[in-house]
């Protein structure tokens, strides 16, 4: 929270604060993330509950988009089957950088209850696209999904913006680890 801390203690004379542009941009970015909702299975129903009155997901500044080209991050909510996996990969590739992935539910994390005999289930979405935040549960409670969102916001705030290579290296390292 680099920027906000400085807002509490501005320079005398008012109106001037010193800080990194990176912090300002990251602050803005983390508070208005548009997401591509990828409702696949049971978790999508909990996700609907998250969007509704009791939990109000939009207070995180998130707006659901139906086109990947307008989205900052993608939420994979549910079991990914082999028939579906190709489509997810295409949609992920259509998103513009910087892009993030939240994997919600045991199924998309690792195959969930279908890990052993599911001949048509992809055992973990991280086999095809890199994942930033994993939310466990079958299905996770809406509160757990909210925590996943807070984790993602933290990740965005701490990200190096102007040294793009860092991010790319990070992704490469992730890919090398997981696949």
């Amino acid at each position, binding site marked *: 929270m680099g920027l906000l801390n400085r807002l509490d203690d501005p320079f005398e004379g008012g109106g001037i604060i010193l800080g990194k542009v990176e912090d300002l941009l990251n602050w803005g970015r983390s508070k208005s993330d548009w997401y591509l909702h990828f409702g696949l*299975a*049971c978790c999508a129903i909990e996700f609907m*509950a998250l969007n*509704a009155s009791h939990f109000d997901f939009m207070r995180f500044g998130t707006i*659901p988009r*139906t086109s990947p080209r307008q989205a900052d991050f993608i939420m994979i909510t549910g079991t990914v089957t082999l028939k579906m996996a190709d*489509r997810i990969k295409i949609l992920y590739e259509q998103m513009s950088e910087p892009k993030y992935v939240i994997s919600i539910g045991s199924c998309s994390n690792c195959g969930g209850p*279908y890990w052993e005999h599911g*001949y048509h289930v992809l055992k973990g979405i991280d086999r095809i696209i890199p994942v930033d935040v994993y939310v466990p549960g079958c299905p996770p409670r809406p509160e757990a999904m909210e925590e996943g969102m807070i984790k993602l916001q933290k990740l965005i705030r701490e990200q190096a913006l102007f040294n793009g290579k860092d991010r790319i290296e990070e992704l490469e390292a992730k890919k090398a680890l997981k696949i």
Partner: protein
Amino acid sequence: MNETKKIQLEYSQMESDRMRLNVGPQHPSTHGVLRLEVEIDGEIVTEVIPHIGYLHRCFEKHCEKMTYPQVIPYVDRLDYISAMNNEWPYVMAVEKLLEIKVPEKVEYIRVIMAELNRIANHQIAVATFGLDAGAFTPFLYFFRDREYILWIMEKCSGARLLFNYFWIGGLAHDVYPSFKQEVLDAIKQVRKTNAEVMNLLIYNKIFIDRTANIGILPADVAINYACSGPTLRGSGVKWDLRKDDTYSIYNRFDFNIPVGKGEVGQLGDCWDRNIVRMYEMEESCKIIEQAVAQMPDTGDVKEAIPAKLRPPKGAEIYQRAENPKGELGFYVVSNGTEKPDRIKARGTSFVNLSVLPVISKGYMFADLILILGSIDIVLGEVDR
């Protein structure tokens, strides 16, 4: 209808190219991961080919590899909106194979839970149908009320959506002391919101204009396609498994079977299918009230749970029950071991969806989304 027919006639006299359009598999209005290949002539739908299987999770394969009690969590994940109702026919099938008599108290709790879950299911069905038609407010109202029902279920079973609550011969846990009162409170809230939504959405002129006279499903076609539940009852067929092929203790309760009457348009249109769901919620409330009044306070919910589960070799049974979406059946074949030889789930949505290509021909493309919404499918059950 006349309006559509007129436009159709005008179009038929023009030369036009047909276009093929893909809806889904990732689309907010397909209620999941359904892919529709649509051929349109201008705005008129000429052909619909559903492509399913994007959520095929190998349910039947898992059943062969798991023991009988282990199958219950997988059964939950078929129609994940009404998990309690899914568990019921499955545990009933195994209980019949083992010839277990379920205690009285368990039967009552099962009825209350199943009916509460039916209300929760219909709330989602009507809410998302409203969303398809462009009404956002009922969605917020229904999801607010649905939470009250989910809280009761969470207190009983520990889960919000997929419960694993009905066990073979009993229940996973007993209900808590203030259960009856909370159920009655939840029903009160449900009734209040239903009355509100009736004015706000169902009898709204815009909504009637959008949904009446489209997607007409005649009764004989519905039976030939083996449609069931509100999809069949919307066409005026008075048929409910709870009454016509009664199971458990449903013969003790007094309730009606609402059917579509063609109130604002032709019989069997989208509006009729939707109004059946609204009335069914009220009927469920009635059943719950009677069940709460009759339910015994004492009794052990786990006393009939068998220690050893081995149905006789070669025994097989087809057990069906009234899921909120229609007839859900399980065909269970035993081979004498603790694992079933074969379990086939007759998915309600799977069967109901197969009628979509027939009833959506000749309507506008925007109506196709409403027709799909009015069938109320869940892709977990379609693909299994």
